[in-house]
């Protein structure tokens, strides 16, 4: 029934000989390296307690990092690392499973493989085996690393932390193995899975925000029980240390993986269970223009990230009501808010901070959208296009303009919808125009990244996407953790985001925005010239 699995496992290891070690080391390494960073920077017990007070009261912290269990280093470690580590594992597992199942079918390679002595179940079993072993390796490295470095909590709890991450990774591998059966293309499958990861992340965020404290233990509302992230949090690994929730992802996998095989047994090779639709017989008038083609290639990426952004701002906007209730229910909280300058001001500061998340998501959209430059080039689609009257520079300009215009539209819409949802569902009053402008003030950030991307595309195309994604990680990392860890100022200033004043809580400062735009345009120009001069990638 599973003939050929071993051969296919070797094939996966050969194909991913570079990707797998990088993912495994970075997933384990991130959590391990955060331990000394936190220990070094948290300082005294008093500053820890102070930090804890502000965090425990903050719903934004709860939404994005989970509740703080206790004012210990273990509690802080959990809040500051667990969901990030979990996200790395979630993306690692889903991308891995799709790459070796649906993507192979789409490519046509699976056809030739399955014409050999390999059962139709073997490719899925092979990749799940690789996923299992990779997760075990990550767990082992992470557990060993943290247990060695951390003295602040028991060794067993370090292992519990690692095991809860391994369990989460397996749960997402199982989810991916089902989604792989549903769609015809790997990009659709990856899109659905990114949505599932986002939705389950938000579900547990809602669970944490609406949760209560039972006998000193933060207990989430039931939403969290629907999410693998929530299951991971239930272990409270480096604080209270509960072992039983490790069973939840295991039981889930035992139920979900057979479902995937059951679906697999019922479909043709290359087909999905969700039917592929028929298309038009003629190209629309729009599609016949170079811009139309560019938009056709870009629109799914745009729509995907737009939906993601809108879900985020609607959730945040309508939660501002909830926050108000939470604040007014507790006199302690009320004092905290008053100390910060009244309810109106805190709402504005909170919402302005949320716009930085909108900016980060939009930046991710722009990077993925620019990724088309490279994928079109290496897939030889570009060769066909440039053999027509379309010029290189026009082709580049169309994609860049689409990404930047799309980014502007996404920022403006997200800012406006944030304000509208505060007004409609959040029971507050927010100036729609001010939030639209506030969101748009992050546009020069997109321009700088676009400049860097196009420059690299011109001179070192292989590295463009990698550098851009690392840059985005840096921007998010600095925004989230820099203050906490206390990195040197010059390092912090490397992130363009810190130079943008959070509007509308603060006035928009034109100087940095103009400077960033000029830098971006200059990089763009140099990049375009290098692209004009270089060879097209060899097929």
């Amino acid at each position: 029934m599973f003939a050929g699995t071993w051969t296919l496992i070797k094939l996966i290891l050969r194909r991913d000989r570079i990707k797998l070690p990088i993912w495994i080391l970075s997933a384990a390494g991130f959590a391990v390296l955060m331990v000394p960073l936190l220990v070094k920077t948290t300082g005294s017990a008093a500053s820890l307690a102070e930090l804890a007070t502000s965090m425990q009261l903050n719903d934004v912290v709860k939404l994005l990092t989970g509740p703080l269990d206790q004012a210990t280093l273990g509690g802080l470690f959990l809040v500051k690392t667990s969901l990030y580590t979990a996200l790395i594992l979630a993306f690692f597992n889903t991308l891995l499973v799709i790459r070796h199942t649906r993507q192979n079918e789409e490519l046509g390679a699976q056809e030739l493989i399955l014409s050999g002595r390999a059962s139709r179940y073997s490719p899925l079993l092979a990749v799940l085996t690789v996923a299992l072993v990779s997760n075990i390796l990550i767990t082992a490295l992470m557990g060993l690393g943290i247990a060695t470095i951390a003295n602040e909590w028991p060794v067993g709890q370090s292992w519990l932390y690692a095991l809860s991450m391994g369990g989460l990774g397996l749960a997402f591998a199982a989810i991916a193995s089902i989604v792989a059966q549903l769609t015809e293309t790997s990009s659709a499958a990856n899109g659905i899975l990114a949505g599932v990861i986002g939705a389950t992340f938000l579900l547990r965020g809602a669970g944490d925000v609406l949760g209560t404290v039972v006998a000193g233990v933060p207990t989430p509302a039931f939403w969290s029980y629907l999410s693998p992230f929530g299951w991971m949090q239930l272990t409270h690994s480096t604080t209270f240390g509960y072992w039983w929730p490790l069973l939840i992802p295991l039981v889930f996998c035992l139920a979900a993986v057979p479902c995937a095989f059951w679906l697999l047994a019922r479909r043709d090779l290359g087909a999905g269970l969700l039917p592929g639709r028929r298309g038009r017989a003629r190209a629309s008038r729009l599609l016949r223009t170079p811009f139309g083609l560019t938009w056709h290639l870009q629109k799914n990426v745009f729509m995907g990230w737009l939906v993601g952004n809108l879900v985020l701002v609607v959730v945040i906007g309508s939660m501002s009501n909830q926050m108000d209730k939470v604040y007014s229910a507790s006199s302690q909280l009320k004092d905290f808010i008053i100390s910060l300058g009244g309810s109106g001001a805190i709402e504005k500061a909170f919402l302005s901070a949320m716009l930085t998340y909108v900016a980060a998501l939009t930046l991710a959209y722009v990077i993925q959208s620019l990724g088309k430059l490279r994928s079109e080039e290496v897939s030889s689609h570009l060769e066909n296009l440039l053999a027509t009257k379309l010029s290189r520079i026009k082709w580049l300009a169309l994609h860049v303009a689409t990404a930047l215009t799309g980014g502007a539209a996404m920022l403006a819409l997200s800012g406006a919808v944030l304000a509208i949802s505060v007004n409609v569902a959040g029971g507050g009053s927010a100036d729609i125009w001010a939030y639209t402008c506030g969101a748009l003030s992050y546009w020069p950030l997109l321009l700088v990244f676009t400049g860097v991307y196009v420059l690299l595309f011109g001179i070192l195309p292989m590295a463009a996407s990698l550098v851009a994604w690392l840059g985005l990680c840096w921007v998010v990392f600095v925004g989230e953790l820099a203050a906490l860890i206390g990195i040197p100022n010059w390092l912090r200033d490397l992130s363009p985001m810190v130079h943008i004043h959070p509007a509308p809580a603060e006035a928009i400062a034109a100087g940095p925005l103009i400077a960033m735009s000029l830098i971006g345009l200059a990089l763009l120009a140099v990049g375009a010239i290098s692209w004009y001069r270089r060879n097209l990638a060899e097929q």
Partner: protein
Amino acid sequence: MNIIETKQLVKKFGSLAALDGLNLTVGEGEVHGFLGPNGAGKSTTIRVLLGLLKKTSGEATLFDEDPWGKSVTLHKKLAYVPGEVNFWPNLTGGEIIDLLGELRGGLDEKRRASLLERFDLDATKKFRTYSKGNRQKVALVAALSSDVPLYILDEPTSGLDPLMENVFQEEIRDLKKQGKTVFLSSHILSEVEALCDRVTLIRLGKAVSEYTLAELQKDHKNLEKLFLSKYEEEQ
């Protein structure tokens, strides 16, 4: 025993019938040509025979067994060359040949070496750097270096130059001498004429006629004339 047999084979994709009652027999030791216009259902037939697609109704057997249920056992006895050869760009031709060989239960090392030489294929190049013809050679070398009773070839030579086409024909004749069965779907009519004992013509998912080469040579001047008359009259 017929190596391949289908009776009233139907495969539907939604409401569209790609195969609509196909009857086909291929006997042991036969080189059988499979002809038809684009979209007639040739590749669909082959994919059903390989157990990659599930038939909607009718019968399809390979070595008297069900290709969907017994796919793995059956695949030990066959080698397949698809019309479009796609592989991961970062593996070399040699690696792909070995992988496919392993999945077919081993390669004949001598044959592998001699085929690489005869087809003039550099096995150390990455797959992405191969031209269309060379990609097809990778699949051909992989298939022909395994010792199996049945070879299923789906337009295997559409990218080969005339020199390589010659090598291919010699290799197929060699297989025939050894008593192997070859099921060859092709648009290169001279190739079919030169190699096949019998041909089946299909149209709209049905077999329209079946000939031995002798019958064919008696009634029609050549295969191209027959092909054109068959499909032009029905248009």
